[in-house]
């Protein structure tokens, strides 16, 4: 009993958050600034912090009547200026063709001009603001989903929440939207929060909703740990800078990563939630106590302190123990083709597959057209039963190997669409500074997202953070 009470002292609860951290550090004016999205946007922008561009503001019903909806771009976000916890936000992904002023949401449902008007009217009436006071609606540019988060995000833009106290980024988490949260990343709406190692910007553990620990994205086997967040240093520095600008002494900074622009600042939060502790499986109170009263000279200094104080050296540890490198589920590789052609692409690391495979079109670009053309012409058995594969391959090897350069081998690829014989080529590529010579199946991967799948055979020197 007493032990539990003692351990509870490392955790930040509602009472101490409100009394010890929000009350003395977030003064009224600063809190009001955080609750006013337009005002904080303006201030952040003025101080050189990148924010999503403002498209239009609607302050009154008159503004609404005069507003020309045709002037809106194809994709945008409609927000209430003083909305709470992600409520009342409408994310528009595209415009419907052939229809006047009809847009589409993330879930492909249509949004007509009347729907937008109704939503704006509700915003103006204060349906989403604290204590229902009349509000302003505004349109802003939509942050574009960055490639690295594509597999993890369900119809929404992930963002990174950083708790900043005394100019030190104390704790951080990556928030992902799920099916349940309707494309919004707020935990209270059912999003996922992944704890982040402050030093490396790599996710560690994850929480679904307010308190459920999860390893994978529900319904998939996509692991939530080991996601390496790009622009990590920049994100932490932005978070600290936003504290200096806003005057919020205890701040939850929300930052997203735009595909083209890099980190963009989404929101200042004067009352950050407590689930970040569950996502990180660590109490916040100890960390806050450790940075209290430190003299922090600059944003860079604050970030450095945080990395030293709170960075768990997870990766180095794993690498030291196993002697193997740690890579991500989607990794950049550089393929070295024929005649010195080099291509840098993103490959999917799939421990479920034994061999590596490469898309036909990419193989052609790398100079393997001869193999593919040759293979298209030759006679192949149409239907292959499971047991027959080895025999058929033996025959085909006798007939074709050596007939054409670069045809290294052949193999039967078993799949749900039927079993086919595919050519194999010798593929050289570099992954995480390691040179690999692989025997890759050439397959028609067509519209699949990743042109190369790296199989178990090539992964002996790596640990995969899936």
């Amino acid at each position: 009993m007493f032990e539990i009470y003692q351990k509870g002292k490392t955790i930040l609860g509602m009472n101490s958050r409100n009394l010890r951290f929000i009350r003395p550090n977030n003064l009224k004016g600063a809190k009001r600034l955080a609750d006013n999205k337009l005002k904080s946007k303006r201030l952040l922008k003025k101080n050189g912090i990148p924010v999503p561009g403002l498209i239009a503001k609607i302050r009154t019903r008159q503004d609404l009547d005069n507003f020309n909806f045709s002037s809106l771009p194809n994709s945008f976000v409609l927000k209430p200026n003083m909305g709470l916890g992600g409520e009342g936000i409408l994310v528009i992904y595209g415009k419907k063709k052939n229809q006047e002023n009809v847009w589409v949401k993330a879930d492909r449902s249509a949004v007509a001009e009347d729907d937008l008007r109704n939503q704006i009217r509700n915003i103006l009436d204060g349906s989403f603001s604290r204590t229902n006071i009349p509000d302003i609606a505004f349109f802003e540019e939509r942050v574009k989903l960055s490639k690295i988060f594509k597999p993890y995000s369900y119809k929404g833009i992930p963002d990174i929440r950083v708790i900043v106290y005394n100019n030190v980024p104390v704790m951080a988490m990556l928030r992902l939207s799920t099916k349940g949260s309707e494309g919004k990343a707020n935990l209270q709406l059912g999003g996922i929060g992944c704890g982040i190692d402050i030093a490396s910007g790599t996710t560690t553990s994850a929480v679904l909703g307010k308190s459920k620990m999860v390893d994978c994205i529900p319904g998939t086997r996509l692991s939530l740990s080991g996601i390496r967040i790009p622009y990590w240093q920049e994100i932490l520095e932005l978070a600290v800078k936003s504290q200096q600008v806003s005057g919020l002494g205890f701040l939850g900074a929300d930052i997203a990563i735009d595909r083209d622009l890099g980190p963009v600042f989404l929101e200042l939060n004067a009352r950050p939630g407590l689930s970040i502790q569950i996502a990180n499986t660590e109490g916040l109170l100890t960390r806050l106590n450790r940075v209290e009263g430190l003299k922090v000279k600059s944003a860079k200094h604050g970030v450095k302190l945080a990395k030293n104080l709170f960075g768990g050296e997870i990766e180095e540890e794993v690498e030291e123990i196993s002697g193997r490198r740690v890579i991500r589920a989607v990794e950049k590789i550089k393929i070295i083709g024929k005649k010195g052609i080099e291509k840098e692409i993103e490959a999917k690391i799939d421990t479920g597959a034994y061999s590596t495979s490469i898309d036909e079109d990419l193989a052609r670009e790398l100079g393997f057209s001869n193999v593919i053309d040759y293979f298209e012409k030759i006679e192949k058995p149409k239907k292959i039963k499971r047991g027959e594969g080895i025999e058929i391959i033996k025959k085909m090897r006798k007939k074709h190997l050596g007939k054409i350069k670069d045809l290294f081998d052949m193999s039967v690829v078993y799949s749900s669409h039927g079993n086919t014989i595919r050519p194999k080529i010798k593929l050289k590529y570099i992954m995480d500074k390691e040179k690999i010579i692989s025997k890759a199946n050439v397959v028609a991967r067509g519209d699949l997202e990743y042109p190369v799948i790296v199989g178990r055979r090539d992964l002996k020197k790596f640990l995969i953070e899936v």
Partner: protein
Amino acid sequence: MYSAFVEYAVSQGVPLGTVTLILILPVVVMIIAFFRQVVGIKAFGIYTPALIIFAFLAIKAEAGSFWDGIRYGTAIFVTVIAVGTITRIFLKQFRLLYLPRVAIVISIVALSTLLMLILGGAYQRTGLASVSIFPILIMITLVEKFVAVQIEKGKKVAIFLSLETLFISIVGYSIASWSLLIIYLQRYPWLVFVAVLINILLGKWTGLRLLEFIRFKKLIKNV
């Protein structure tokens, strides 16, 4: 038996029941604050549970027994919430603005409450039928709070908060009906300042709430 202060108030024409209820109020709100800060039960703020506790007390005063207060009070509470939810779902398709929509919800809830009272009378539940307008009105206004929470935080949270509110109301009502407490308050009215003192302590309390120990259970294990 009563303190000089209470005697004086009564002699000036203030009904004893009113004096007692007012003296109980500080205790009731202290209990609600305690549930929020130490236990972690949120309910619909402090105002709504306090009002509901008084609605329960009013029902008791009219219907007679302690159990009638809980029984009929809970019946009206559940009816109000259920009808409110159904009406709101039904109204969704019409896409109305907030205030007119809530106005319709309140109207329909009011009519259903009336229907319930009539039915209660028809089935010889005279205690229910004779409940005065004051507690009923309080319960009906609860619907606005409920609808607002439903819009802001979703159905699940709203229902959860309603249950919490009901729980706090029943506990608060039980304490407020405790005859010993009433006797002591009538004899020593200054006891209300003890409640204020406890509130000051609660207001400085920075420890984890009981329910937070459960919420952060895994975290505590990992530390």
